[in-house]
């Protein structure tokens, strides 16, 4: 052994170089191995944390221009309106090759008439904005500008405005009819615009005041296919109140309409979905369940009567998790999200009527009690939620298309689905194959793509390091075995000729090489582990992975803490060190066996012929 070690130390620089090279390849293997394991662990750990959802917007087939008279401008105003020859349905999203994790769904929200609950924002405060009232002008006038009228009678619940003198204009009528001061008129009027015209200017008031416009009172019902149901009555804006007017169809319609606003005051929006992850406020984290739980997949699938209730509504009505909340659905709205009709910040407006096709106020078509399984809250700036909106499994509503008061195409806020992470490109390819060119898909992945890109880079780097390390280790161990075995065959032959057994020769050689390898691998493993920590952190850029690069940009939790993932795996590091040892010993063992199986005298003669020293 001493002889062999002396032989190894005969060329100290070469020996030192070998040790350093072993250390380098070990470092490469350890860093490569650790990075691979770390990146693999990261992938698995955060796979579940990421959710990829897509939203869908249907492109209009044409854009039409509609004109509307504006009395103030004394001209038409034009507005571009999207026209659809065919409304896309969720069936159009059922591509055979795509397996959705949730959805696709085109959500409705339903209006639920629940006067028994205390409302966070009492809409009755706005009751005088829209009324059905009898009025007379103060003088004969043409209402093509702001004229003064006196409200003589209110046909609805609130009588506040009886006797009120205010401004009025048949604003959107190109050819309004003259109003006579000695006559009484009735109309559904809405406080909507600002005063204008000569009478207003003559009044000497410094600031404009609100004026009332007459509004049409026609039902706005649609078929499930999106066809508007025609109103056969043909209502006009203003009617003169004559004897027996309220016995006419128009009179009866106005009497019915006079009370329909009270429906709105007591309406709570109910949103149907298949997963809260498909709702942008929940997906992005601006809404969350603070007590209880989310409905389960099974509850969504089975349409169980469970719901998530908002904090304010629950607190105002003393409701908590486990309590039941009543719903009486009376209209369906697949167009606008509830946030437009029931604004989180208070108030709201609606562009539809609450009239049925018979001209009477809508009545509930489905009545159900839901059990509250979770209470949710939201940030003040939340988008996509209606005020006091209940969230229920879409399948829990049986009559999903009853009393459709407004219809709309698929839009980001109403249509979404969840697919597997990392399959966006596949999805787009498939959707293009099926000719879904009229649909615009927008994907949100919470930064999954950015993180996986980072992880992929980490994996590529680790694979490159590992491969280079492995190739280096093979070359190096071949070189070591050449230097310390093949080039020692004469010495080995002499030792064997002197009586040393082949086994002993082999044992001594391998022990020497093992020592050499250990001198390189042990510090190599240590250095590799230290370096892996640095590389892990530096490669991901920061210890916390920021989701700001996702499509979303807003999230309650925008960062993922990676610091815990940067730990080296000592087992992996040791395995890499062992790999170098096994490789070195294996290659050396094979070389040694070839040498020792040779005939010593022949080897000596061969050495002498080659003029090599031992």
């Amino acid at each position, binding site marked *: 052994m001493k002889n062999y070690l*002396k032989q190894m130390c005969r060329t100290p620089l070469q020996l030192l170089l070998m040790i350093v090279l072993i250390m380098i390849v070990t470092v490469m293997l350890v860093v490569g191995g650790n990075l691979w394991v770390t990146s693999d662990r990261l992938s698995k750990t955060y796979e579940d944390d990421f959710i990829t959802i897509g939203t869908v917007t249907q492109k209009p087939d044409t854009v039409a221009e509609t004109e509307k008279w504006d009395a103030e401008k004394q001209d038409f105003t034009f507005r571009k309106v999207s026209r659809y020859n065919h409304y896309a349905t969720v069936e159009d999203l059922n591509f055979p090759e795509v397996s959705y994790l949730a959805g696709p769904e085109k959500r409705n929200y339903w209006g639920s008439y629940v006067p028994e609950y205390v409302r966070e924002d009492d809409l009755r405060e706005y009751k005088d904005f829209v009324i059905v009232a009898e009025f007379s002008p103060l003088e004969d006038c043409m209402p093509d500008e702001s004229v003064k009228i006196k409200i003589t009678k209110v046909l609805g619940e609130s009588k506040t405005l009886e006797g009120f003198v205010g401004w009025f204009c048949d604003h959107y009528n190109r050819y309004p009819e003259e109003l006579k001061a000695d006559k009484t008129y009735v109309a559904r009027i809405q406080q909507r615009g600002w005063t204008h015209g000569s009478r207003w200017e003559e009044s000497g008031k410094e600031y404009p005041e609100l004026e009332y416009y007459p509004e049409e009172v026609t039902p706005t019902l649609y078929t499930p296919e999106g066809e508007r149901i025609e109103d056969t009555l043909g209502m006009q804006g203003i009617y003169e109140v004559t004897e027996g007017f309220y016995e006419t169809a128009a009179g009866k319609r106005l009497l019915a309409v006079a009370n329909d606003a009270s429906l709105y005051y007591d309406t709570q929006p109910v949103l149907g979905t298949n997963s809260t992850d498909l709702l942008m406020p929940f997906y992005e984290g601006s809404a969350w369940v603070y007590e209880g739980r989310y409905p389960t997949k099974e509850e969504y699938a089975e349409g169980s009567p469970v719901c998530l209730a908002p904090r304010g509504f629950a607190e105002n009505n003393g409701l908590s998790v486990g309590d039941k909340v009543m719903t009486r659905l009376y209209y369906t709205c697949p167009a606008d999200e509830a946030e437009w009709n029931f604004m989180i910040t208070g108030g709201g407006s609606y562009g539809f009527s609450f009239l049925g096709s018979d001209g009477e106020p809508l009545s509930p078509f489905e009545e159900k009690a839901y059990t509250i399984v979770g209470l949710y809250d939201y940030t003040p700036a939340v988008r996509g939620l209606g005020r006091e909106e209940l969230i229920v499994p879409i399948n829990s509503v049986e009559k999903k298309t009853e009393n459709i008061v407004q219809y709309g195409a698929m839009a980001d806020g109403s249509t979404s689905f969840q697919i597997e992470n990392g399959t966006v490109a596949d999805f787009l390819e498939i959707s293009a194959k099926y000719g879904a060119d009229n649909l615009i898909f927008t994907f949100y992945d919470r930064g999954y793509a950015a993180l996986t890109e980072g992880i992929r880079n980490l994996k590529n780097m680790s694979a490159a390091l590992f491969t280079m390390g492995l190739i280096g280790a093979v070359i190096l161990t071949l070189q070591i075995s050449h230097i310390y075995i093949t080039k020692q065959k004469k010495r080995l032959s002499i030792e064997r000729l002197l*009586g040393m*057994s082949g086994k002993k020769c082999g044992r001594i050689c391998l022990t020497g090489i093992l020592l050499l390898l250990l001198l390189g691998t042990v510090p190599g493993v240590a250095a590799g582990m230290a370096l892996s920590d640095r590389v892990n952190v530096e490669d991901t850029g920061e210890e916390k992975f920021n989701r700001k690069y996702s499509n979303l940009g807003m999230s309650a939790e925008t960062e993922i803490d990676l610091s815990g993932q940067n730990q080296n795996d000592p087992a992996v590091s040791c395995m890499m060190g062992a790999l170098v040892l096994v490789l070195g010993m294996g290659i050396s063992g094979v070389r040694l066996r070839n040498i020792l199986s040779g*005939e*010593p*005298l022949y080897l*000596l003669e061969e050495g002498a012929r080659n003029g090599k*020293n*031992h």
Partner: protein
Amino acid sequence: MEKIIEAMNVSYIYQTKYQKTKALSEVSCSFERGKVYAITGKSGSGKSTFLSLLAGLDVPTEGTLSIEGQDIRKMNRDAYRLNRASVIYQAFHLFPLLTVLENVMFPMELQHVPKKEAKARAQEYLKKVDLPETLYKKRPNMISGGEQQRVAIARAIASGGEILLADEPTGNLDSQNEKVIVELLCKLAHEDNYAVIVVTHNEAVAAAADVVYGMSDGVLSVVRE
């Protein structure tokens, strides 16, 4: 004289993937203690192969080679080389990193002789081959070829065996050193009762031997007895 080695119809065939070569053909002879034997012959005649069999590095393909009556096939041949038969080479084959003294001590290290005793015995063997004491701590490359061959002989006898096998021991030496080495080998045979078997081309070496065999195409014949 007592026969120490006896070969009976020994044949040896080198077998490769493509061909068989008969290197030795029915060689029969015997070697006794106290004598110097020379085996002469041209290159490729089979004499080195025969020496290899005598050193226990291989076994005959056919026939019997026995050491004091024991078939070499049944012996531990490593132990045989370590304790009974030593080989001396034309190129000396000393360990360059060991001193002269350490080279001679090497076989005793393999025999697990205590270091102190091995050192004393090594010094004794070096005296026997007339190597000046001033060279004991020198490395082989610092001494002459004749001196190196004397160290090799000292190393050969250090194992304590009674068979000395020499493969062209004077091939790398000048005539003066050649004479010294031949005398030394004869002295070891005649005074210390070694069986010395020398494979050589050298006629002077052959002339000094007690028995001369000739080898031609693997066939051994007695030249002089």
